[in-house]
């Protein structure tokens, strides 16, 4: 490893360390926010803000002291002293801050009690709970940082010459980081869901089955959302680190000098585009899947009923016409019911009420469509990951039958689609042709030469010569070859005999040879045709 490589690695390590520490801190802050929100929901009288502040302090402290503690041998005297003193400070800090949250008098009282040895008053349930949380937030950042070090944050660790032999069944560090982020994410999602439910109302509700009440908004949602965003950013960074470590270990040179910069740029763009798309997709205010289905079917049924009623009404009117002619009141119209109006989209009452039922329907279709896609995607991935299940499915008769049915449907749908489209095109062309014949539609006589290729342009000019020649009485007989017709024309137009020869030759080449015809040739033929056309015009004027 040369000196330049080491310097570059050190610089990159510094940048990676700063970014990853910041991301871990932000993720922990989001977790603190979510947990704080749950505490607020369950116990509104508790000092959740203070607890959240304490947790953030512990996270910062852990991030700051992580490398110092890591340099010590675990369970050695030095390590015990360092960790012990750190925790004494943390415990005192928590206790004093919780006391101070009740006011200065409460703090002084607690201090005096502590001085007298009343330790039972020291360990209140709130303090113990906060202590447990502190332990969790002291432990979690270290887990993230250890994995990041293993991935490649600590280049000395990963690039040492005598690495510990890696067992084949060991999960890669990046994979373990993904697992850690997602596991903590699941935990936070459940906590956020609990924070959304009005637990107090549920628990205090009379009756055997508690009613589910959902709070309109909880601050924990934002926390968990941002936790995942920062988590994805950390994954992107760790992916780059793991790849660089892998390349360094295998001595694979990185030819693109600015790969790290581009990675950062693309990661940001990727997450930004993802965030924009996610924000555009529908969420909430949606109908249930089956109610959505019922709504759609009801709407379709309503349309059918409306159409049938309309038809019945028309038939009744036709039957009533003879009575009207004789000046009698039609008997059928007297008590016949009027056709109902076109059914409106029914709106299921959900809270909060949306502005537009149609918009809600569209969003619901999007939502449930997306969910179905997710379920199908997950199922497929699951099946692909389990080969035995896939093999069993392939062996199953039901699966084979389903596959055959699908293939039959697919084939028939394709054939039907093709037939229908052909029928539509034919029908449309028939209609247009009939209208043109009846002179109801103007003939589309304009031809754009730009649409033709050079070969077709030569055809066009030659055919124009034949048409114009025919108009001047020099009609081409069906038995005449191009050369024979050229001879006929040359007799009538000796001044442009060479041009006629030239255009005929060009046409014959374009029509019967496989030579490449370029646009310059077509342009020359056009110029030739112009001279012949002028000669034909002079002939028509009798000059």
């Amino acid at each position, binding site marked *: 490893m040369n000196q330049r490589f080491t310097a570059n690695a050190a610089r990159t390590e510094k940048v990676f360390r700063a970014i990853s520490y910041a991301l871990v801190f932000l993720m922990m802050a989001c977790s603190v926010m979510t947990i704080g929100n749950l505490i607020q929901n369950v116990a509104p009288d508790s000092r959740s803000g203070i607890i959240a502040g304490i947790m953030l302090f512990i996270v910062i402290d852990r991030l700051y002291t992580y490398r110092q503690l890591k340099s010590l041998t675990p369970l050695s005297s030095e390590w015990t002293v360092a960790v012990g003193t750190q925790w004494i400070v943390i415990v005192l800090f928590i206790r004093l801050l919780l006391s101070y949250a009740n006011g200065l008098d409460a703090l002084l009282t607690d201090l005096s009690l502590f001085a007298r040895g009343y330790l039972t008053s020291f360990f209140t349930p709130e303090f113990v709970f906060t202590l447990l949380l502190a332990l969790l937030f002291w432990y979690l950042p270290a887990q993230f940082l250890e994995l990041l070090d293993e991935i490649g944050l600590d280049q000395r660790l990963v690039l040492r010459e005598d690495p510990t032999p890696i067992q084949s069944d060991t999960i890669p560090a990046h994979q373990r980081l993904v697992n850690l982020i997602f596991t903590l994410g699941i935990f936070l999602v459940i906590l956020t*869901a609990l924070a959304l439910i009005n637990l107090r109302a549920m628990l205090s509700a009379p009756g055997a089955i508690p009613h589910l009440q959902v709070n309109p908004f909880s601050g924990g949602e934002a926390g968990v*959302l941002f936790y995942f965003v920062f988590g994805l950013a950390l994954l992107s960074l760790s992916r780059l680190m793991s790849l660089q470590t892998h390349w360094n270990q295998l001595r694979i040179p990185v030819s693109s000098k600015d790969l790290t910069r581009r990675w950062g740029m693309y990661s940001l763009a990727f997450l930004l585009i993802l965030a924009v798309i996610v924000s555009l997709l529908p969420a909430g205010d949606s109908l249930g899947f089956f109610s959505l289905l019922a709504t759609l079917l009801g709407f379709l049924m309503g349309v059918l009923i409306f159409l049938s009623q309309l038809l019945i009404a028309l038939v009744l009117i036709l039957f009533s016409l003879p009575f009207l002619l004789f000046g009698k009141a039609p008997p059928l119209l007297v008590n016949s019911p009027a056709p109902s109006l076109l059914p409106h989209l029914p709106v299921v009452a959900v809270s909060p009420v949306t502005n537009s039922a149609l918009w809600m329907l569209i969003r619901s279709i999007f939502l449930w469509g997306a969910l179905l896609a997710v379920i199908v995607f997950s199922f497929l991935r699951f099946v692909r990951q389990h080969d035995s299940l896939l093999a069993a499915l392939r062996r199953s008769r039901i699966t084979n039958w389903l596959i055959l049915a699908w293939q039959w449907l697919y084939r028939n749908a394709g054939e039907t689609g093709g037939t229908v489209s052909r029928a539509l095109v034919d029908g449309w062309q028939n209609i247009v042709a009939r209208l043109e014949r009846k002179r109801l539609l103007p003939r589309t006589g304009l031809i754009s030469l730009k649409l033709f290729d050079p070969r077709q342009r030569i055809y066009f000019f030659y055919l124009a010569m034949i048409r114009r020649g025919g108009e001047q009485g020099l009609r081409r007989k069906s038995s005449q070859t191009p050369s024979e017709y050229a001879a006929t024309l040359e007799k009538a137009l000796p001044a442009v005999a060479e041009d006629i020869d030239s255009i005929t030759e060009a046409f014959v080449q374009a029509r019967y040879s496989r030579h490449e015809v370029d646009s310059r040739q077509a342009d020359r033929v056009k110029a030739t045709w112009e001279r012949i056309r002028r000669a034909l015009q002079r002939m028509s004027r009798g000059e």
Partner: protein
Amino acid sequence: MSGTFLPLLFVLLLIAAFIRGDFALTLIYLVVGALAAGMWWCYRALAQVEAKRRFASHAFLGEKIKIDLHVQNKGWLPILWLELRETLPVALAGPNSFQSVIHLGPRASANFEYSVEARKRGYYPIGPLSIFTGDILGLSESLKAESRAEHLVVYPKIIPLTSIEIPSHSPQGTLRHTLPLFEDPTRVFGKRGYASGDSLRRIDWKASASTGRLQVKLFEPSIALETCVILNLNAQDYYYRSRIDATELAVVLAASISNWIIARKQMVGIMVNGHDPQTADGKPQAIPPRKGKHHLIRLLETLARVEITENSALVPLIQQQRYQLAWGTTLIVITGQASDELLDELYQARRGGQNPVLILAGRDASEESIRRRARIFGITVFSFTAERDLKIWTQESKRI
């Protein structure tokens, strides 16, 4: 995909279904979107990569072959990282093989140049080029694509021979011969007075008219050295300790003799019973005797490709192909050992008007016994244990 991905999705779906929390749906979109978009990008990008190699596909021993590798992103989607690993044969590249990591922007390309050295004759695959890429978040496994391998032919070593005495029974050739048996009527070298018994066809009427006495033409005798080199690459026919060196020496002998014959504007063909990686059944195609440099290249290509093989007896091959060769053709059989069966077959060839020559390549304990038996059958035998022994053909002529 991570093992925790599906549990997370399941929890989110449950929460979305029962609580109708916006955040759960948004998270589903975010997580699934990150995974799906990452995978799509990765698959799409890899499908757009095209790699091409440019190099001289044939080389002589000792040459350095420059290989240009051109990797192009044909799509508009940038490729974040591509790990390129070229698989190169150890015989050409040694332990160092080409590998690199690149980033390719939209419709961008990258060029690489590396070289290999033709150290040993053979038919070597250059590649395949393994191309790895993956998603930006590392949620899915890395993808791998392979561009197909191309082949490099390294010709065998050719030792410039100057004097080989390979007898031929084929008349009407271009090589002068000392025996007046095969006189060439196109090669008149003088005239003499008519003697009784001279063919009337030999009389030079113009010379007879000018001298007033009957003169007959004297023709220069010549032979055609139509040769077929039969190379035995059956492993069992070589002494096991020196099998590799001996077979390589046999190939060098075959190439050098072919080169020498072609240089004399004679026809030479080849028959090998080894393994040819280029043919469908692995058996090398017999090349009939022809003249010219192009034909030599064809022979050398075959000799470059062929490899030693097991259980491929030479005698059936000779039996099968011998009858397609012309009368008087010289059969140069290069082998490690000669069994009685082989000697018998060569004897049959000799009786059939062909001219067998046996060349023993490599060291073998039974050499003397082979010589003795060959002498009984009237077959010429040459023996070479190493390339240096070929000096007898590069400096002086020696008939055994």
